[in-house]
């Protein structure tokens, strides 16, 4: 348990080198070692989706990975996606539509929705619901989230083919 491992990875575009406990989860690593608290631990068993982030371009649960597995990996968190402006349109749609209340699940929800947006096109509401079905929100009842994602998809699709 006390074994430690050195990892070199990229987090939000910046090179990071750290020696980590072999048992430290990725979500704890980001929060405790890097101060990236936007990725949140909601259930720590891979169900609620609050810790969803982007790893080498794919969305994953940060509570189900060990930091020690990430040597050479490329991690993008909500902080990075916000600063790069990549999801500014999605965030604006969430804001207009009030697609969040307490905000605890929001980062995970946005990271998941961003993956759907990257597929292009305008998915049906059903498809959006399916795609987000691994992200738990207790406050909104999901309607506003579906509306906001739909709006962002439509706006991007229109921009892509005017």
């Amino acid at each position: 348990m006390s074994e430690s491992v050195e990892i070199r990875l990229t987090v939000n575009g910046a090179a990071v080198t750290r020696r980590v406990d072999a048992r430290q989860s990725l979500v704890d690593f980001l929060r405790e070692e890097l101060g990236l608290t936007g990725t949140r631990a909601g259930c720590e068993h891979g169900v609620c989706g609050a810790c969803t982030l982007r790893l080498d371009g794919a969305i994953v649960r940060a509570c189900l990975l060990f930091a020690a597995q990430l040597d050479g990996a490329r991690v993008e968190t909500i902080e990075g996606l916000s600063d790069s402006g990549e999801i500014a349109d999605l965030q604006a749609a969430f804001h207009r539509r009030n697609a969040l209340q307490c905000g605890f699940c929001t980062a995970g929800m946005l990271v998941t929705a961003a993956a759907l947006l990257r597929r292009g096109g305008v998915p049906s509401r059903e498809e959006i619901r399916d795609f987000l079905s691994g992200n738990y929100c207790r406050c909104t009842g999901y309607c506003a989230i579906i509306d906001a994602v739909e709006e962002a998809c439509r706006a991007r699709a229109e921009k892509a083919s005017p």
Partner: protein
Amino acid sequence: MSEQPLSFFDRPNSYIGKSVPRPNAQRLLQGRGVFVDDLRLPRLLHAAFLRSPYAHARIKRIDTAAAARRAGVVRVVTAADLAGLYTPWVGVLTHLKGMKSAPQHPLALDRARWQGEPVAAVAAETRAAAEDALAEIAVEWEELPPLASVEAALAPGAPAIHEALGDNLAFTRTIDAGAVDDAFDRADAVVAETFTFARHTGVCPEPRSILAEFNPADRRLTLYCSSQAPHMMKEIVLRHFPLAEADLRVVCHDVGGSYGIKIHVYPDEMTVIALALMLGRPVKFVADRLESFVSDIHAREHRVAARVAVSKSGEILAIDIDDLTGIGPFSTYPRTSAVEGNQVVNLAGSWYRSPNYRARLRVVFQNKPPMSQYRAVGHPVACAVTEGLVDLAARAIAMDPAELRWRNLIADDAYPWKSPAGLLFEKLSHQRALERMLGMMDYTGLRREQKALRAQGVHRGIGLACFVEITNPGPAFYGVGGAPISAQDGCSLRLEPGGTVTCAISVTEQGQGTETVVAQIVASVLGVALARVRVVTGDTERTPYGGGTWASRGTGIGGEAALQAAKALRANVLTLAGAMLQAAPGGLDIVEGWIVDAGTGARRIGLEEVGRAGYFRGDTLPPGLQPELVATRHHQPRDYPFAFTNGVQASWLELDVETGFVRLLKHWVVEDCGRMVNPLLVDEQIRGGVVQGLGAALFEECLYDAAGQLRNGTLADYLVPMAAEMPDIEVAHLETPLAGTELGAKGVGEAGTAGAPAAVMNAINDALAPFGARVAEQPFTPARILRALGRV
């Protein structure tokens, strides 16, 4: 210009009634909110808890020596180590006559009374070190027979869970109004049903969290809480720990969902406070998901035997209910665990005209986690029982269920109205709401569609549920019973030298949009842009004293305080501006941050000039004029104990009679919460509330075995509503402003949860009707539906 000045609501630059997005949502959208677990303090310790693995067991011996020796462990404590540091608490309210409960301690003394009760705690340098040490604590247990079910706990000869209390009946109440027996005797039809409501729980996205920072040098304690009621929490801690009032501060930053869960006193959180005082270092505890399931309060657990008497012509003659509810081994402090059941018997049947009503309530101790107030306290139970009976009565006399409701709802012109249980309704709009609903959902069209589909073997159901909702509670709710729970709230406004406004208010934010609504009111009344109002909440040292946000009181009570404070500050500003401009204050107005001539609207000076003169250039002001650029006002409801709202919900769903699966197709809500300050936020309160109700109706259940062991205490096993299963929810409003306040707003947070389970139950039973089957046990799982159909 009209003769009458426009009201604050009608001014062209008013934000009241506008769907303004929440300014404070921006930080949450960037992952830059601050929840308790995001705080970083020097020398922070992490607490972890050893919890009872048994529902009922004697603690014969605890050996903590090995745990205490582990690297990184600073202290291991049991109940004995905390003796003398605190006083125990008892969850009773004096106005709930005859109610009893037992003293509760931070850690179980000699007996554990539920699976999950905290027994020992470790404080360590890291959470991992604290959890590792838990495994080294040796406890010698003597298992005792658990009383898990309410029936077992109440059976004659059942041992008392607390010997000193004599038996396991915590509270009982009966209501007998009108002539119930006579009504049943003369009824054309009498229908009975037993409705069962499973235990479920809040599953807040952010688990319960507390960080206690004690500075031994000046004996000051700062609590960072995930809570709805910081002032209450302060008062509670002062009652039970030796601290001076001035030395305790409670701060709530962002709160990751609460819904009532985080308004109670929890023994593990009290232990954290004791640890901080013992160790002189900050101590943090964040519940993990698994321990949340056995340590957060649970909700509901009712069995209600009910019957209704109805005449052939469709008059509901009487309702008679008997509610048996289990609350775990302790009544939760300080709100008690009797209010849930008390609201069931208060509310049931109250939106119908019949004066004949009988109810019995029995609130029972048992060996399960404490049950207490969760969103829509008592409402969903009262609503499902009432509306379930109404549908049964309609079927019994072969009348359309909408028609039966129409004939029995309290008429819109009958107010004020007093219900048989004594509830006072100032002015409600049941008839208009039902009429609106039937139009919005195209009730007759849906009935036609349903009939046509039935012929094709597709089984769809329509369910209606009318309801009332308790909001804006006055001091008769808790304060009168001795709880340190304030029914009033205060708002303090300060004009800054640069012309912006700092607003400190005692109602709190958990994502509902409290801060936005308050800013809208202040900006509108004062006459400034919304962006110029900075709202501060959630800090006992920085806001006026008040109750916080719960029971749908934030807008109705806090909003009125904000409105009155803004009027007062406006008058102060105009007095100063009048002196500066040598004009009568009455001839001036404030519009978009400018002092203007009221008559012409011509801009004279900006608010920043008023601020600068007030703070920096007193030399330019007339002698004797002391600028007062801070104004504080409070509000508490006095005219009525509660501001009731009303509404109706409808569910349209499809039942797969082969699998028992329910597919929600659509859900509608018509709600009357008085004046709406922000319709967008009102709609989202309703939608979120509906989905919590749908979870209770279809998925959520804390499954216990006979030994009192939770069988589904993970998020993989306990089902919550996810996006894929939820329907689109259409919401419409009526606005009957509340009398007695200038704002006229009532609350809206409970309505969705109150009515959704009843609407779904009635829709399922409507779909089941051709099979002669029905269900009354929530949640309505596929297994229960198939059993009702006789297929399993």
